[in-house]
């Protein structure tokens, strides 16, 4: 009876220090058996460090961990698994060239004969309704299916606490629903779940309790079902949340960016080819491209920025002028700016100063070069302008780009492009890994640029971001782009199907029939 009353997991006074940072400061909370407990916080709030200590990857500097009432020390992940703690990481550790079965066998602590393992895998899958062929090669599986491998691997150990680290960041809405069904079933069977996320509506839909971390400290433990998303977000960021202020009604202008039947071969081994992509973005329009990671988003950004040039110069036109075969430099001169997903080493050079980083993309448009020589004064002045108008926390133009936090560097990069007043701006994952405050500032800047008459393309895996930001939305899957839909009339269910790869056939069959009939 005692074990029934004692919480499954209880942390008290957990503290973890890294050089220069207090990652966890005196954190205490507990998880009951069968409870789905959310761990909520911004990037860098200390969620990952905390669960790494629970899973034995790191050791706390102070504080104690109790398991079923007993004080324990989790020496390493193997010890954690012996206790009954399972973890599904945000980044999968799978071998692409091996089958599902082989991957699971490799991750087991004990050696289990293949046939025996296969039957227990099938049993687990049947019990939780997880569909997966044990003999498929991992490289042929979707992200959602790969996550199922990790879940099955964790479930084979009959865990009594399952830690899920940002599990839905790569899933379609339908896959998220399926995952929730599995998690709820696990919870009713008595397994506790520690669910790490920053997606508030998911936490409201799934979790019984939410522990909110900010800057390594526990801010609040609350019941998410009685809180509003807004109140939790405010606890998470520690300040009032600013709404994006969109001009109430905007008339969209003429087409500024027209992409017409753009195709491109895959770059490298794991690249995705672009197939017959067409869309139009008008002045003042924010055009969103949704999709699960790895479906051609990177290739599309490179094709639009000019880092990869197209065979057909008419495939991309800016204000009527074909730019498909122009280089990145020439496209910038025509007013087409871009911000790739990766900040360090792609959008910016980490070991260059902020001032030197302006030269990378602004040198020609802003006249930072004369007679082959760089006008360092002009670069430094512009860097100062960007820092001031985008409230970038940096010592000054001479700071190294790599010394800025992710959010500040992203604000700097966005500012560097936006202050050049581009006629077309293409951004990928504008708020990826950025704290909520910076994300709001970046969203506002995008909206303001559109209001000033630019055409904007936002490529993002965060559907919520696109739905709140964009006027129009299309979905990219395996290098193909769906038809564009008005966000105001968009159906999340249909978007989810498109993200999952159900193209034309089912999703737009009625439309095609109508076309034939007409």
């Amino acid at each position: 009876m005692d074990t029934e009353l004692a919480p499954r997991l209880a942390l008290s006074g957990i503290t973890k220090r890294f050089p220069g940072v207090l990652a966890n400061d005196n954190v205490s909370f507990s998880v009951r058996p069968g409870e789905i407990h959310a761990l909520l916080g911004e990037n860098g709030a200390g969620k990952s460090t905390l669960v790494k200590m629970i899973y034995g990857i790191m050791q706390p500097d102070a504080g104690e961990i109790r398991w079923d009432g007993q004080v324990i020390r989790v020496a390493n992940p193997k010890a954690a698994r012996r206790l009954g703690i399972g973890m599904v990481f945000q980044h999968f550790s799978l071998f692409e060239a091996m089958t599902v079965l082989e991957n699971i066998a490799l991750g087991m602590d004990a050696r289990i004969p293949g046939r025996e393992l296969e039957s227990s895998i099938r049993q687990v899958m049947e019990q939780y309704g997880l569909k997966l062929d044990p003999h498929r090669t991992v490289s042929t599986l979707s992200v959602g299916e790969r996550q199922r491998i990790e879940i099955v691997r964790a479930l084979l150990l009959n865990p009594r606490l399952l830690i899920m680290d940002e599990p839905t960041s790569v899933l379609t809405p339908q896959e998220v629903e399926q995952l929730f069904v599995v998690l709820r079933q696990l919870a009713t069977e008595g397994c506790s779940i520690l669910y790490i996320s920053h997606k508030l509506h998911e936490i409201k839909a799934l979790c019984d309790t939410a522990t909110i971390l900010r800057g390594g400290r526990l801010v609040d433990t609350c019941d998410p079902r009685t809180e509003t998303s807004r109140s939790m977000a405010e606890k998470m960021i520690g300040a009032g949340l600013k709404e994006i202020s969109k001009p109430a009604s905007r008339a969209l202008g003429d087409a500024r960016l027209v992409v017409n039947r753009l195709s491109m071969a895959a770059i490298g081994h794991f690249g995705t080819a672009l197939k017959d992509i067409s869309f139009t973005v008008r002045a003042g329009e924010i055009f969103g491209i949704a999709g699960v990671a790895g479906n051609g988003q990177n290739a599309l950004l490179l094709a639009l920025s000019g880092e990869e040039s197209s065979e057909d110069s008419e495939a991309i036109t800016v204000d009527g002028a074909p730019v498909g075969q122009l280089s990145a430099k020439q496209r910038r001169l025509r007013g087409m700016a871009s911000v790739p997903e990766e900040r360090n080493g792609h959008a910016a050079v980490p070991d260059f100063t902020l001032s030197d980083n302006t030269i990378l993309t602004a040198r020609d448009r802003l006249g930072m070069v004369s007679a082959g020589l760089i006008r360092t004064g002009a670069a430094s002045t512009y860097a100062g302008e960007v820092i001031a108008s985008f409230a970038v926390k940096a010592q000054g133009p001479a700071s190294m780009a790599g010394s800025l936090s992710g959010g500040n560097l992203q604000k700097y990069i966005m500012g560097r492009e936006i202050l050049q007043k581009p006629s077309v701006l293409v951004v990928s994952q504008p708020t990826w890994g950025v704290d909520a405050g910076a994300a709001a500032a970046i969203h506002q800047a995008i909206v303001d640029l559109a209001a000033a008459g630019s055409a904007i393309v936002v490529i993002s895996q965060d559907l919520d971001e696109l739905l709140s930001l964009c006027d129009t939305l299309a979905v990219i899957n395996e290098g193909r782009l769906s038809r564009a839909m008005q966000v105001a009339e968009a159906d999340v269910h249909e978007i989810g199907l498109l993200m999952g790869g159900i193209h034309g056939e089912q999703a737009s069959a009625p439309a095609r029939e109508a076309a034939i009939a007409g």
Partner: protein
Amino acid sequence: MQVKLEKRPEPSRLMLVVTPIASVLLTMAIGVIVFDLLGIDGFRAVIDIFVSPILLSYKWQDVAVKAAPLIIIALGLSIGNRANVWNIGAEGQYIIGALCAAGIGIAAGTTGGPIIILMMLLAGMAGGTAWASVPAGLKTRFGVNEILSSLMLTYVAVQLLSYLVGGPWKDPNGRNFPATAPLQPEQTLPILIPGTTVHLGIAIALVLPFVFWLIMARSVFGYQIRVVGSAPNAARHGGFDSDQTVWLSMLIGGAMAGLAGALEFAGALKAINLGFPSGYGFTAIIVAFLGRLHPIGVLIAGIVLAITYVGGQVAQTTVKIPNATAGIFQALMLFFILASDVLVRNRIRFVRSPRAGSGQAASQTAGGE
């Protein structure tokens, strides 16, 4: 226990300057120990190699003459190395540069003067550039590794030299020795300080580092080289063409090596024989790294390496050690500078290795956040 290298957030600027000096001092210390163990007066040997050329004023001109080609070649190489283009074949480009200059000299017959000299130097640069264009073309066109192709072309250049000096270009009055006829006095580089061997090439070697410094620090081309070397994807994003960078840095490296070859021929040796390939093109790689790929650093490092060449000759007569000893010291210096580079950019951490079953966990930690 496990030893791990961890990238430092920002390498110390002081260390970037201190480590080349420390490398030279460590090389000297190791030299003392090794020679003492071999039963040779190690302290004397190291003093002779590293210090005597500085103390003996009559050796200065030798140092200057040897430093000039090292500096000029290393300037070119440092541009490529900054952009991660590895031209290992400067020796070959140097040889071809000298041969092209010799060709002009032979074609000019007995006529000389500034025009002929200028033509010789330009021909040297053109020859080195042409030789470097082969690995550049192979790399950009077919993805051939430039380290291999440029190195192999060095041996082609050596064979070409043997053929020319032993055959068509052999001095008719040279008693059948495989060597070209010496240049006419009006075809050689002017001597800047009368009574010494200090020729025009040395002045060029003193001025060029400042020109390169201006280019690297202030020009868009220098920026391009720095971005390509530091963040190739950012360079593409910024609109810098990577093939163009390979071409330019390879060709500049070739042009400088060719110029050095022409200057060495027209300034110091005045004739080409089978001993012409002396390894300057390889030693210049050490100069480039010891000089931190910075033009002014290269100037200083070139002088340091030249000192070891001259000092090696001194030690040959005083402590009776082979001339090749200088080569060992040069190699030690490269070893120390590269090793200390690793430590400037990374720090060593000792980690308690967790027990079995954590391999998976370790990889997850790495990809965790």
